[in-house]
């Protein structure tokens, strides 16, 4: 037993670095930090930033030959590595965002904020590779617990406390349901790791279609789906999303909407892809779950998610909340890649995540910077912004157009890939609903740049709003990939393809 642990450690360095980062930053915070010492908070932030940088530098040296670590707890394969890069890159960006954000900096306990970002990142790393029900549960909980705290971080703000409470209640209930599903699945198969579950189910020994056991199996999968659905904020498990996204500090919202969602998808894909793959009768994906058309269920969830997200976003006047609904809609789009469960579908998902990373983080960054300067996230306060702050206006327009999915920006490529995947699998109706949703989303994104460019400022104040050079530079750094991936995305797609090919079945 102990040998297995020792053998696994060399492949586990990035995670070890992250956990050390968390522990060290926590200790530093306890020793030198304290009330009213904001400067030490920034020190903690720098420690975490350093830890993340070391992590990302270690990762290219990892041997990505697909294999299991710590028994069956964690799978290491290029698919997991893909998500880990995404997560830690998002982590670095979010720390940089938070260091600038007034909302975060004016808190007394700013140091702890960074500690929890580290904990959350560690949890998401585990989620990306988790291949055992226990590890799935633990990693999801680690991420959830850290994000509950981060969501309620602006203690003085009423909406922040409310967001955290809703988040913790909803999250607790969802994980309870998921756990119950897991316990049933364990009872049926006698195993916790998804590979054994797969082989047991595929052998057809434990579940009889004409028996209670089949009903129990279906029930357990639906319950587990609830847990994942909550993590990726799929409708109808999305109720927490808008509130939490609006109440949490913007940088946390950005992190939740990109990294936490990506990790949720990673664990969901791995679970469903592996556990119910029928290799014995060669029925393929979902093969060991007869009678029910699971592709159709996921397709319906995807349709519900994107439609609700887009339709409700139309009425939002708070931009953070609008982006929250838009991110629900994007989860719906991404689920289209999961529907078909093909290599192309997964490639499309991965490519979409990279693109989504740049466009969504960019959009949240603008909302954060503008809120710091003018103290409002309301759409009417964006009137005339195009003239008052040209770079910010252009940047925001580019991110929003990219989110809509119009060429020649990156978002179009993401949509193209996803639609390709569903059309290849003959889900034309799903693609049609997808594009109609893009048209709806265009309407509310266009409201923003209509306000920024076509309308006069609310009280006739046309004085320029100046942003620090750093903000301008970061905005431009986000604009560049949105354009580059729009016209030259070959390497991105090949990288996503390679990551999917070596998925450990």
């Amino acid at each position, binding site marked *: 037993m102990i040998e297995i642990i020792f053998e696994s450690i060399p492949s586990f360095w990035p995670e070890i670095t992250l956990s050390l980062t968390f522990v060290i930053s926590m200790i530093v915070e306890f020793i030198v930090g304290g009330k009213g010492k904001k400067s030490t908070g920034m020190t903690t932030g720098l420690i975490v930033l350093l830890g993340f940088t070391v992590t990302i530098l270690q990762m290219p040296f990892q041997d990505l030959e697909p294999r299991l670590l710590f028994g069956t707890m964690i799978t290491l394969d290029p698919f997991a590595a893909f998500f880990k890069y995404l997560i830690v890159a998002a982590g670095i960006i979010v720390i940089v965002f938070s260091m600038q954000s007034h909302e975060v900096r004016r808190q007394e306990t700013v140091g702890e904020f960074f500690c929890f970002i580290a904990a959350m990142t560690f949890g998401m790393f585990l989620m990306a590779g988790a291949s055992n029900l226990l590890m799935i549960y633990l990693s999801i909980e680690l991420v959830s617990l850290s994000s509950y705290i981060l969501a309620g971080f602006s203690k003085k703000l009423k909406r922040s406390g409310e967001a955290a409470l809703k988040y913790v209640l909803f999250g607790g209930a969802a994980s309870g349901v998921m756990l119950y599903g897991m316990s049933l699945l364990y009872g049926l198969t006698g195993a916790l790791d998804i590979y054994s579950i797969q082989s047991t189910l595929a052998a057809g020994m434990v579940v009889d279609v004409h028996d209670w056991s089949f009903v129990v199996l279906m029930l357990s999968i639906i319950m587990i789906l609830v847990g994942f659905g909550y993590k990726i904020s799929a409708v109808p498990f999305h109720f927490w999303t808008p509130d939490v996204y609006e109440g949490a500090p913007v940088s946390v919202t950005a992190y939740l909407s990109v990294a936490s969602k990506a990790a949720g998808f990673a664990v969901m894909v791995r679970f469903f892809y592996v556990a119910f793959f029928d290799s014995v009768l060669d029925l393929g994906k979902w093969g060991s779950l007869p009678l029910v058309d699971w592709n159709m269920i996921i397709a319906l969830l995807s349709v519900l998610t994107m439609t609700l997200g887009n339709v409700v976003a139309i009425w939002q006047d708070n931009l953070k909340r609008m982006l929250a609904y838009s991110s629900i809609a994007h989860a719906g789009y991404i689920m289209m890649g999961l529907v078909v469960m093909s290599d192309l579908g997964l490639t499309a998902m991965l490519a979409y995540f990279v693109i989504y990373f740049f466009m969504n983080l960019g959009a949240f960054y603008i909302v954060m910077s503008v809120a710091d300067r003018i103290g409002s996230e309301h759409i009417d306060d964006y009137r005339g912004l195009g003239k008052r702050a040209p770079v910010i206006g252009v940047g925001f327009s580019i991110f929003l*157009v990219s989110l809509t999915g*119009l*060429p*020649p920006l990156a978002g*179009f490529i993401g949509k*193209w890939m996803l*639609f*390709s995947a569903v*059309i*290849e699998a003959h889900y*034309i109706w799903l*693609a*049609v609903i997808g*594009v*109609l949703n*893009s*048209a709806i989303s*265009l*309407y509310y994104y*266009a409201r923003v740049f*209509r306000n920024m*460019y*076509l*309308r006069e400022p609310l009280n006739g104040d046309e004085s320029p709003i100046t942003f620090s050079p750093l903000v301008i530079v970061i905005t431009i750094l986000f604009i560049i990939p949105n354009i580059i991936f729009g016209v*030259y*995305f*070959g390497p991105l*797609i*090949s990288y996503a*393809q390679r990551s999917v090919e070596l998925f450990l079945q």
Partner: protein
Amino acid sequence: MIPHVLNVVLFLPLIGAAAVMLARRSDSAARWTGVVFSLLTFVLSLELFFGYDANNPAMQFVEKVSWIPALNVSYHVGLDGISMLLVVLTTFITPIVLISSWSSITKNVPLYIAMMLILETAMIGVFSSLDIFLFYVFWEMILIPMYFIIGIWGGKNRIYATVKFFIYTMVGSLLMLIAIIWLGYYASTMPGGEFTTDITMLFDIAPTIPLGIQGWMFAAFALSFLIKVPAFPLHTWLPDAHVEAPTGGSVILAGVLLKMGTYGLIRFNLQLFPQASLEFASFLSVLGVVGIIYGALVSMVQKDVKKLVAYSSVSHMGFILLGLFGVTVTGLQGGLIQMVNHGLSTGALFLIVGMIYDRRHTRMIEEFGGLARQIPIFATFFMIVTLSSIGLPGLNGFVGEFLILLGSFQSDVLGSPWYVVFAASGVVFAAVYMLWMYQRVVFGVSRNPENEKLSDLSIREIGLLLPVVLFIVWIGVYPSTFLDKTESSVQRVVEKLEKVQRGEYLTTSVSEQ
């Protein structure tokens, strides 16, 4: 010969746009940069016109570079007679638009110039793409500059108009996106096939799609193009967009953007889905005829000159639609030349309306009268353009409409003279509403003392209209200059459809390129 001339023509305006944005210090610098770049593009595009070999029906000036190997998408552009003519029309109209807005656009000038130049690249790209992916990218690239051109520099109701324009176009084109991807996958189901978006390959593959599905494909493409044309029930965005757009925007909209719809119908619908095209031909021709008459009748009751011209566009575009779906060489040639004509004469009408609006800040017919005595040069130009729009023999409009009517009359696909009868009534209506409008505006007595203070056209304005009028007369008197260039390409399209109609189309043996 200039090497890679098509690439240069395609991207020069984009470089110009970048230059304008970088040199945004002064408005006049931006204006000059814009004009120089667009004129240079026009001069270079003449090489496309004169260098085009009219006897060779294949694509010319072809450039092909692999772009995204993973998706088998390439940067593939090239021109045949049809697209060459439209590219040259685009490069011809753009400098005129830029010069016309010299004094009427005063707010945010560099942005305006840059948007126009980006629009030019996108339009040339639409006409010259030989890869549907590339085509789609350029097609959607139109939206953003147009949104801003109408939205920032437009009239009172500009936000409503621009959002309507945006949503209409977007909804149409998104369904086309699905059809495009589906086509790519259909190609990969062919023996030895792979996913492709290359039009030259799809020309051979797509006609083998079973008729039922082909109908859906046809519909998905056609919806997007018919909105752009705009054909009768889908036209409602056009009057709003035209009325609210600044003069330059209207000119480019009427002059080139609408042609993208009819061009798409020729390039994609007729050539990719010939069987479905024949099935839908009479339906679309009916839409065309309804558009002709509806547009004419609505024009008749307009009080606003610009709105009148906008609705007359609906009528003229109906003619083009009729010409295309008669599926005869004559009709298609007529439709093609009519696309150019409409670009010239309606473009010129919008310029003229813009000139009078700049002076009087109104476009209501009832406000004018007696302009002939006051500003004779203006009245003369207005006269020529009006007559061209009506289709007076000797001017360009006549050639196009005559060929279209002749083509539909000969058409086996339509097989009924009634189309021609109704369409011809549209010509009569056109004479009525245009001449009536002209008479009320230019002749008679002035109904407003303001009219007596008007100044006649400046040298710049005359310089704008003169080249347009030159081509109006040229096409009217000697259309062969242009028709000869397009004939072989049009013939190729029609031959393919005729083969399909005779049931001779052998899906595997056709090799067109």
